[in-house]
């Protein structure tokens, strides 16, 4: 038996997919047997078990480890197997082809850098052949070869092979997928797996093994613009280390980083590592790294670091292609947890544009839900702004999963940014923050001096609900407690800062809210707890509070909603006050919320825990 003794220089993850019974596990077994990659005695052991149980030996049994899999003759879950060939270590993922186990196939394919897609020559192109082909494209597996198996059952006929190639190429062409190769094989008999087939002299292309060798390691994503999603921030010792995986580009000590969507900025002071001498000064795509910054800015998990010249998109909505694996269907209007890289945020499906039938790529419109194993085009809307990219340009930051209750229930790729109504203000905030001139006193210094962080309490509600009264009461209480608080009343802007606005502009919310938000932003920068109401905006308080939020981002906003009778408060409201208000109790609830959010310390006089500065 020939044994491969070369040293590995790289790993390559390959997935084998295709319709059930088209011979994936058999191909894998054959590949191992013909390259001498099986442990001594494995083949003989499995053959002996088969004989004992009175079944014909199959190569598939080498990898279908579960008793149940061997009894039913199908693969239930993906298995990883390893083999070495010509200096490369292959991790081969055998994915199940049975449609019930689609989530396992997807889990396997999501890990792969290249794929082999099997089609049975006798059965031809089947439902899962198409679904798997489509999903490979959706999952971002662009390198793949189509292996037409069981050629022995069709008498090794070239016309059968050509027919399948033509039909399947046409299908793939509809979503612009181009396979590296079509290979006619018999996995059972070993034709064109590792050894060239004597029976198919009409085929002169590469064998399966040649094709694997020709697959490229994923192209260097290091040449793309930088993307580093913050995974965690550690303070185990004197160092405050920001960790994460660089998913694109490269960074080095001294680089100026922008964190989105907060727009916080700082320079990289060091690159941290354990047991690496000398200490590294740079990092590149693929690496899980740790960095320290020259300024103690507050960044948290989910922020995306990039260089200032090439920022990710930021929005509360995007369009996507999604596959759904949940036990319960995906429903329009229901809440799910969205995860893009390390960011987690609540979201809902704003609209389902169409369901795609992967059999014929027909599109069905007007649906309000997406069933298990279906693929759909939809728009998602998030509760807070998210940084992301389009999947066509950035793989890792252009895809997402949805979590339903405890489970990852679906995944997809982002195809388009959807402009939301905060877009212009967000852009204004970004430009303003990038150009912000700072004094010597940092935000952290002010917070230490004042004994609390800066924040804004924003009281919303209809007319005559007691907003002004509560705001005054809260300001009084905060100042009496020794806090630095200020009531920002819209009336004071109206006669001064807004005096240049025309009657018409004053009648609209947009410009008034923008000015109000910018003033609030300035006051927050002075370290104050700003108390404000949406009084100047009348019934347009929802629009106004969204604008103010965008402009003061990422300062903490404590949103309080007041109404006479029960009604739906604006999104992200923290304290809801309905009916006749007990103002003392309401003030106490707001103070509790300020403590819970880490703006105030738990007890007056005590120092708050400054895990971070704003």
């Amino acid at each position: 038996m020939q044994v491969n003794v070369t040293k590995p220089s790289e790993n390559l993850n390959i997935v084998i997919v295709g319709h059930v019974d088209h011979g994936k596990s058999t191909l894998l077994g054959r590949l191992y047997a013909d390259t001498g990659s099986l442990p001594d005695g494995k083949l003989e052991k499995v053959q002996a078990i088969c004989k004992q149980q009175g079944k014909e030996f199959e190569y598939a049994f080498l990898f279908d480890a579960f008793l149940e899999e061997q009894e039913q003759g199908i693969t239930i879950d993906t298995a990883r197997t390893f083999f070495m060939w010509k200096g490369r270590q292959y991790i081969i993922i055998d994915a199940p082809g049975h449609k019930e186990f689609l989530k396992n196939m997807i889990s396997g394919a999501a890990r792969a850098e290249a794929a082999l897609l099997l089609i049975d020559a006798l059965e031809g192109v089947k439902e899962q052949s198409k679904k798997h082909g489509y999903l490979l494209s959706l999952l971002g597996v662009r390198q793949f070869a189509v292996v037409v198996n069981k050629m022995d059952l069709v008498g090794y006929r070239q016309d059968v092979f050509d027919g399948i190639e033509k039909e399947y190429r046409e299908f793939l062409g509809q979503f612009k997928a181009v396979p590296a190769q079509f290979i006619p094989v018999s996995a059972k008999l070993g034709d064109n797996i590792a050894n060239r087939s004597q029976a198919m002299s009409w085929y002169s292309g590469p064998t399966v093994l040649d094709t694997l060798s020709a697959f490229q390691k994923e192209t260097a994503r290091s040449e793309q613009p930088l993307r580093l999603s913050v995974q965690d921030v550690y303070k185990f010792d004197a160092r405050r280390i920001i960790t994460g995986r660089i998913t694109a580009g490269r960074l080095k000590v001294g680089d100026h980083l922008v964190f989105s969507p907060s727009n916080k900025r700082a320079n990289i002071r060091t690159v941290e590592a354990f047991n690496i001498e000398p200490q590294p000064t740079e990092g590149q795509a693929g690496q899980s790294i740790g960095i320290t910054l020259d300024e103690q800015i507050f960044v948290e998990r989910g922020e995306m670091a990039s260089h200032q010249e090439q920022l990710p998109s930021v929005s509360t909505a995007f369009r996507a292609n999604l596959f759904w694996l949940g036990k319960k269907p995906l429903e329009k209007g229901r809440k799910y947890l969205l995860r893009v890289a390390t960011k987690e945020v609540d979201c809902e499906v704003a609209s389902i544009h169409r369901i795609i039938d992967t059999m014929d790529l027909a599109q069905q419109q007007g649906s309000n839900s997406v069933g298990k194993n279906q693929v759909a085009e939809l728009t998602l809307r998030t509760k807070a702004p998210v940084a992301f990219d389009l999947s066509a340009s950035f793989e890792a930051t252009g895809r997402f999963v949805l979590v339903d209750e405890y489970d990852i229930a679906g995944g997809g790729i982002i195809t388009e940014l959807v402009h939301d109504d905060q877009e212009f203000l967000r852009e204004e905030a970004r430009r303003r923050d990038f150009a912000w001139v700072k004094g010597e006193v940092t935000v952290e210094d002010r917070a230490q001096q004042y004994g609390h962080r800066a924040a804004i309490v924003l009281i919303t509600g209809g007319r005559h609900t007691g907003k002004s009264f509560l705001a005054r009461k809260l300001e009084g209480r905060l100042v009496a407690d020794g806090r630095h608080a200020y009531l920002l009343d819209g009336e004071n802007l109206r006669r001064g800062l807004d005096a240049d606005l025309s009657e018409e502009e004053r009648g609209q919310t947009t410009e008034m809210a923008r000015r109000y938000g910018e003033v609030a932003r300035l006051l927050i920068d002075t370290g104050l707890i700003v108390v404000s109401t949406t009084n100047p905006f009348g019934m347009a308080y929802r629009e106004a509070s969204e604008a103010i939020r965008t402009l003061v981002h990422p300062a903490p906003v404590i949103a309080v909603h007041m109404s006479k009778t029960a009604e739906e408060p604006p999104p992200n409201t923290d304290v809801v006050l309905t009916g006749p208000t007990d103002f003392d109790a309401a003030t106490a609830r707001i103070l509790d919320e300020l403590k819970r959010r880490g703006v105030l310390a738990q007890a007056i006089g005590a120092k708050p825990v400054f895990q971070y500065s704003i």
Partner: protein
Amino acid sequence: MKHLRQLEDQSVYILREAYKHFNNLAMLWSMGKDSTVLLWLARKAFFGHVPFPLLHVDTSYKIPAMIEYRDRLAREWRLDLVVGQNKEALAAGMNHTLGRVVCCTALKTNGLKQLLEHKGYTGVILGVRADEEGTRAKERYFSPRDKHGDWDFRDQPPELWDQYKTTFPPGTHIRIHPLLDWTEINIWEYIRLENIPFIDLYLDKGDGTRYRSLGCAPCTTPIKSTAKTVDDIIEELRHTTVAERSGRAQDEGRGMELLRKDGYM
């Protein structure tokens, strides 16, 4: 070397995800080569610190040198070591002659379950590798266990890209497997690259034998080998076609599938 750094980056990412998402997290350490590499990777991920306890399920049948090595590293690396033992089973005289699967279930599986239950760990990090044996090849990086610690391999959660299952119903826990993609050779190459201290039972000390996989003394037999250094081991593994766990009695027949379904590591 590049392929080892790729594996390291992936394992470090998984460890950091585990630490972020689980408040009550622990790592299983058997002092073998795999879980010691895992421990080293934790020091990599957390910059020299190990911010969770290390659990050792002591069957009382371990080779004494393993216990000495355990206590020495725990001291030197300032580890929070938690040792668990199924004392009732031992008091009742449990040993391998009563049946290997019976003994492993009592002392290891149940010993582990008792420890997890007692301490209320919701995330447990283990050093299992996909290339060790068939059922481990089908594991997820983040693999849920039900209220009884059992593994439902028929219905495993999807695992997409770098997104793992980190939420789970009360009473259940998640097993985390950062070494799934590593092979036996990768482990030794990494030990060499990073100069990780390992137990010398893995080396031939002159009698022409060494251990390739470490377990309980009665159920683990050394292999014939003259490998006296890590280089020798790597060279030997490049040429062998003998299964790594061929010296482990519990793998005979369907032993491992039955053990793992019930919550074995």
